[in-house]
């Protein structure tokens, strides 16, 4: 594939019309929460964008992230964007193996020094270098070497961003996230188990268009995709507001599509674009399929209680308990303060004034 090809050439070769392309640009602008006036800029940037070199490293992972991207099957616009970068190294997808594969990585690093984008999925074991190696190089060393001359790092999936499943208790390999090891490079966290394909391509599109890292939240995630909780954007939210909850997976409430909060939905504490971008070319997302959100884009989601336990499951009536607690608290504090005051007052009355006689 010639490196001089631009995205527009490539799209036309794939039978994508300019109308289709502009439509993609509009969607991208919407996803990135940019004003419509920037759509031409995105189109222009992408039309003339050269294929940046991307090196994809996979460490302790399940290949789900790669699966997610490949499932955004051709000819969707997302996968084309992905075709359009020069993916110079990717264990699972590359044809080369052994020395040839490693040589490709080294060549790409050399040719694109300080310009390539490093994508990482999977967590990095720090317990013993032998826990996970590629071509005889342990994961940590490979990450450090490859990150050294990267322009930016995109950590893909919850393992690479926050340690994910390998990091779950008892964390036998002492797995850590990319950001625990690399401190001197811009890192964009794209968590999810796996992340949504358009979120991954959207982050890359932003980088290609503006040459900058998107605005990130305190967990290093692009705010445009992770700015709202699933709960805030959930189509079942009205049921939550009305207090209509499914109590079991097969009751009338579940059938009527009521809120899944009591069945363990982690939507209120999970930040991701599932409820808006959805999955499988915008078909649906877990809650729409009747499954509570498990909070997979949040750190340590595996260890945050059971998936089917409600976030704050009350065991008794909240109102009665609160009233009883307040009453009990008030009585206790009055009693405690009374003991305190009377004891102190009595003691003050019996005060032994210290004089020089006590200094004999």
């Amino acid at each position, binding site marked *: 594939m010639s490196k001089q090809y631009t995205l527009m050439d490539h799209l036309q070769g794939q039978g994508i019309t300019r109308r289709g392309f502009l439509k993609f640009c509009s969607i991208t602008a919407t996803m990135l929460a940019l004003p419509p006036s920037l759509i031409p800029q995105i189109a222009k940037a992408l039309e003339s964008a050269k294929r940046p070199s991307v090196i994809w490293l996979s460490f302790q992972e399940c290949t789900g992230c790669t699966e997610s991207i490949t499932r955004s099957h051709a000819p969707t616009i997302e996968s084309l964007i992905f075709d359009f970068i020069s993916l110079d190294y990717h264990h699972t997808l590359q044809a080369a193996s052994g020395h040839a594969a490693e040589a490709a990585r080294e060549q790409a690093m050399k040719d694109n020094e300080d310009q390539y984008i490093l994508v990482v999925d999977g967590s990095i074991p720090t317990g013993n270098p032998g826990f996970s190696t590629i071509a005889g190089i342990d994961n940590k060393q490979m990450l450090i070497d490859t990150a050294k001359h990267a322009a930016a790092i995109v950590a893909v999936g919850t393992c690479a961003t926050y340690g994910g499943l390998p990091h779950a208790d008892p964390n036998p390999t002492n797995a850590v996230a990319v950001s625990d090891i690399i401190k001197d490079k811009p890192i964009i966290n794209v968590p999810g188990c796996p992340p949504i394909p358009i979120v991954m391509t959207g982050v890359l599109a932003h980088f290609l268009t503006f040459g900058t890292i998107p605005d990130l939240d305190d967990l290093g995630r692009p705010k445009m995709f992770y700015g709202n909780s699933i709960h805030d954007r959930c189509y079942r939210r009205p049921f939550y507001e009305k207090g209509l909850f499914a109590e079991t997976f097969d009751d009338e409430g579940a059938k009527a599509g009521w809120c899944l909060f009591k069945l363990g939905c982690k939507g209120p504490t999970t930040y991701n674009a599932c409820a808006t971008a959805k999955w499988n070319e915008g078909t649906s997302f877990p809650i729409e399929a009747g499954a509570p959100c498990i909070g997979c884009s949040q750190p340590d989601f595996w260890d945050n209680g059971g998936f089917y336990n409600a976030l704050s499951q009350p065991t008794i009536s909240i109102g009665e308990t609160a009233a009883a607690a307040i009453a009990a608290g008030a009585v206790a504090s009055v*009693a405690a303060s009374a003991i305190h005051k009377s004891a102190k007052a*009595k*003691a003050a009355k019996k005060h*032994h004034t210290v004089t020089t006689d006590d200094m004999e």
Partner: protein
Amino acid sequence: MSTNTIALNAFVEQMDSSMSAYFQSCTHCGLCAEACLFQTETQDPKYTPIHKIELMKRAWQQEMTLTGKLLKSIGLAKPITDDDLSEWEKVVYDGCTLCGRCSMVCPAGIDISGIIRKAREAFVASKHTPEGLRHGTKRAMELGSPMGVQLPALLAQLKHVEKDTGLSIPVDVEGADYLALLSSMEIMYYPEYIGALAKIFDHANVSWTLCSEAFEATNAGIQIGSSDLAAELVERIVSGAEKLKVKHVISPECGHAYTAIRWEGPNLIGRPFSFHVIHILELLDQLRAEGRLKTTGSWDESFTFHDPCQLVRKGGVVQEPRHLMGMFTTGLKEMPDAGVMNWCCGGGGGVSANPRAEDLKHIVFNKKKNQIEHTGVNTLVTACANCRMTIEEGAEHYNMDLNIIGLTEKLAEYLEPNQ
């Protein structure tokens, strides 16, 4: 009342909502142990700061909590006996300098050294106090100074100072801006301090005076832990200052004297002061900032500076001495932990006035010794007469080659002569 009942009563008198919160919020994390030089140097767990108040905590549980009262009513509470008081007396007096380092590190924000100070009230009231400290306090109450220094002794020293400096020392000047207080140690052992004050105030044209009725800054009542006696000693200074109608009172180079007059004073006498209290280092730094201090020449020696605990931790006087030293030297080699987390010399909080604690004082001085040796210098500057004395004794005990100087007198050496 028997002595143990008096003690229990005095413990209860000290309780308030913050004490109650403190007793309930300790999580036994052990950070205070590592912050206390008595613990680190002896490795004896009884010197863990929060443990030092265990007896007071027992009093709180029995008298101030519902469960404690319940247990006491059915005879399950362990009473506080005279033997307990004798045993804990050695911990709260000999094994604590009230340096406040533990209060700094407590993640629950418990003012441990503040509680120990309050716990001492019960020990004083029940006569469970170290003899040396008791006798010093008696002298302070009856003679005006824990060392027995009286006015004729001061006047005799002033004559020497006037002769040495060629300056007259103002005494009982009504309407002066500043009333300078002195510690007995300065009068008897370090009269250079008085000379330095005279030189600096003459140089900076500061209107100041001493007071013949209130020259003693130290407060034995604070050290032994009796608010009754401490209030009387503070009252002496207040009446002297009010009589002379001064605007400011200067606390000298003495740690607990500063805490006594600056922080505890108004609470002890129950009314606000009509004057403002300032530590000598704060005043000197203020004069420096106003451009009223001019120095000449520079001191070429390498030296280290010992931050007195009461100054840095209770008063936040950290940068002031460094600004002042910066005027005439660049030779300062800071100790590890210098500033607010500096280690205590081991003689504060009445320990230096308690001969029974002497051996322990020498053991814990090892901490300061290590700090000093780390800097590799043979000269130490400080700003507290008691620290100075303790370090001198410690250096003597360990055969250290160490020269110890007060900051104010060193600064006075480098003043530019007035035209």
